[in-house]
């Protein structure tokens, strides 16, 4: 199956066309945030203060890259585990966030919010940080520089490879994949 190419910011039309298991290439601007940046963003929202970037239609990538060497755009930049951001994800979706990129399962509440707000959760391949960095064409810190690797960055990406894990219809690749391949191993030795 081929890849679907999409461009950020995401519209509802783009999101409703994505189904769990679809391979997708993302183009455009995405933003990075991890645990502490999420905590700060949701505090700003609670206090009705402006955010470092407009969330409308945007995609947040859960990543804390390695430091770039001289001449490099970015260091190794694969996804971190997403459930740590579950506590904050609904609030961001309520305020316009359309997509999240990470790895690993989400809470029932986040999956519900993905349906309610017509959003999408993409999985990138964890531990493929060198490969993924090739899709990142620019990297600029826009907030919380003191958080070092965890600062909020604006990244321009080209054909950033992901797979749809949770779609806006309640589809869940992790659940479906596991069910499909349960008890399929027949006495195989991997080594």
């Amino acid at each position, binding site marked *: *199956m081929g890849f679907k190419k999409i461009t950020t910011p995401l519209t509802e039309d783009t999101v409703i066309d994505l189904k769990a*298991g679809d*391979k997708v290439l993302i183009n455009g601007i995405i933003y990075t945030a991890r*645990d*502490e940046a999420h905590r700060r963003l949701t505090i700003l929202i609670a206090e009705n203060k402006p955010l470092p970037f407009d969330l409308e239609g945007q995609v947040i990538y859960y*990543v*804390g*890259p*390695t*430091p*770039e*060497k001289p001449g*490099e755009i970015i*260091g*190794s*930049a*694969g996804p*971190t*585990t997403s*459930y740590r951001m579950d506590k904050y994800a609904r609030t961001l979706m309520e305020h316009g966030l359309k997509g999240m990129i990470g*790895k*690993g*399962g989400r809470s029932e509440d986040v999956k519900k919010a993905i349906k309610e707000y017509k959003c999408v959760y993409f*999985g990138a*391949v*964890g*531990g*493929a*940080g*060198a*490969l*993924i*960095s*090739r899709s990142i064409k620019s990297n600029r810190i826009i907030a919380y520089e003191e*958080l*070092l*690797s*965890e600062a909020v960055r604006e990244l321009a990406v080209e054909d950033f*490879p992901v*797979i749809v894990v949770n779609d806006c219809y309640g589809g869940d*690749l*992790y659940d*479906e*994949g*596991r*069910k*499909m*391949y*349960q*008890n*399929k*191993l027949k*006495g*195989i*030795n*991997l*080594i």
Partner: protein
Amino acid sequence: MKIISSETISNAVRYLIINSSVNLADDTYKSLEAALKLEISDAGKNALEQILLNAEIAKMENKPLCQDTGLAVFFIEIGKDIIVEGVNLTESINEGTKRGYLDGYLRKSTCDPFTRKNLGDNTPAIIHYEFTDGDKLKISYAAKGGGSENMSKIKMMKPAEGKAGIIDFVVETMEIAGPNPCPPNVVGIGIGGNFEKAAILAKKALFRKIGEPNPDEELAEMEKTLFKKINNIGTGPMGFGGICTTLAVHIIKHPCHIASLPVAVNIECHSHRHGEIIL
């Protein structure tokens, strides 16, 4: 007596850290290649292909395999005929850790547990010492990422639960872990000892080379059983579904209290960054 300078130790540590963050270990690479041949799920195969391609790119571009370059974990074996000259052994390992993470442009991940403020140089390293005969200093290193470590578990089981109970606990731990610890995983299991000993043994079990058999027949049999059961969960590479959820299961056991049956499961991601140097 053999004298080793602390500077030699720091340099060896620095090398181990930088090298293993960029170059996927041979045993890991081979087992991932074997997994790709066996995997039957398309999405799972695709993930394994990306993982293997990533290893090529990391090597070629001298770039870390993964952005989570881990906490630095060491198992040190110190021969009784060794004297370390200069700063003490712990300090020399921490100095090497600092240099490795700074010079290698690796991510510094140690932070204060409450303020979450990054400490900036990835120290302190986590170091376990064992004292041996002879005049060798063996430094075994692993970069342990947070994603897989977070899904690890320890359970003080009842002796009556026995081997069957242990197998159920390990499989359940891997089911709950699902896609989070970047499967296919290496699963290290420590059985026995006490609360902290089981956890250290589980970590130590990860250091055995993939493909190297367990010298204890009973444990080797248990590893095979677990290997099949875990790969039948269906999680697959990166959780996208498939039959390759673990690359290897490694068990170490140790005598324990008559009242106890401690079991620790330490999960390791597919990057499985490790290396050793003997000085």
